[in-house]
């Protein structure tokens, strides 16, 4: 079927390097979304141990409050910040805000107004803020 339709398939999503930072942000948005959903479900399950009493809760903490657990939590913090900041950018863009104004296109037509510096800056800012939040999270969790 794929051969007949010649669709790129999922590798069309997975190779984010060909079309600039906007495509990279699209890919990262999807990845962080899935990661956060997985964490959310896991978080609901881990916190539910509280209904089984103090021993069960402490046992769960023993499992999650480890170096690996803290690193995973730091990644979750980074994913949340990126997904939030980039999500707001995408939401505004999808409402037609900050995507430029239609006009008379000029040769060689290689600077589309929608892929403007405001959006690029927001993407870089969301990556930067995510990295900062991760560092702060690590500092809090490891109490350095």
């Amino acid at each position, binding site marked *: 079927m794929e*051969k*007949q*339709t*010649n*669709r*790129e*398939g*999922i*590798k*069309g*999503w997975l190779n984010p390097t*060909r*079309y*600039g930072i*906007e*495509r990279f*942000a*699209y*890919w990262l*948005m*999807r990845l962080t979304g899935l990661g956060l959903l997985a964490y959310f479900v896991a978080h609901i399950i881990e916190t539910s141990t509280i209904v089984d009493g103090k021993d069960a809760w402490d046992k769960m903490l023993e499992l999650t409050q480890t170096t690996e657990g803290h690193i995973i939590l730091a990644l979750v913090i980074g994913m949340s910040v990126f997904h939030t900041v980039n999500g707001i950018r*995408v939401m505004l*863009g*999808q*409402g*037609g*805000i900050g*995507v*430029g104004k*239609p*006009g*008379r*296109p*000029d*040769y060689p*037509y290689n600077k*589309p*107004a*929608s*892929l403007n510096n405001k*959006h690029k800056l927001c993407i870089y800012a969301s990556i930067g803020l995510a990295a900062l939040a991760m560092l702060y999270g690590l500092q809090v969790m490891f109490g350095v």
Partner: protein
Amino acid sequence: MAAIAPQTLEEKPVAVESQSKSITLRISKFNPKTESNRNFVDFTIPYKKWTTVLDAILVVKENFDHSVGVRYSCRQSSCGSCGMKINGKPALACYTKISELNSNTITVEPMDNFPIIRDLVVSFERMFSAHKKLKPYIISEDSEITKDTKEFLQTPEDVEKYLQFSNCIKCGLCNSACPTMATDSSFIGPQALAQAYRYVADNRDKGKNDRLKIIDDSHGIWRCHFAGSCSKVCPKGVDPAMAIQLLRGYLLGFRK
């Protein structure tokens, strides 16, 4: 995927001016009716500063392998026929100069996300049907060809609202670059969505609600995630990503 031994102009003397610079042109050969795998055939082609990828393909057709399937017409990026994947990215072969690719090997393949007819030629059937579905014409009960009326006047500002979107030559590069098109066979696609906006933004048109109803579907405008790849590859400055976001503004209530 098999590679066939490279052929050069030296091996087969023909009346082509000898050049100091040359590239290897790798052409994807595949006939889905008779073959099960794609083959790449290599050719060594001389080029000048202004030689386009289409020129190089035509040198191959003229001198080495006339069976190479390629669709082209105007050779000046007006007809939208020669879209293909050039070194991994969709582009018009007539608009892409070899000297600007900065590569000694140029690989040409059929565009992704379109069924292959043969070699570099793909079928536009689905793109055209999505385009037609969105009513790409002015919808208005008034007519400018009745006796007592004049033509519909538009100010230059009115025209600028849709002018760039009317530049679309239906080459399909945007649909080929779109990540949603890579997996979603029911998605309308950036080409048709941009054309929907072209008519919605035209103040002579009264079909906005009809079109918004068509695109407000589970495989309609909401499957665009503003990755912007369509605008990145558009050779005519249409900027489908902008058109789609502006169009979505109507559905979100940001625009009236």
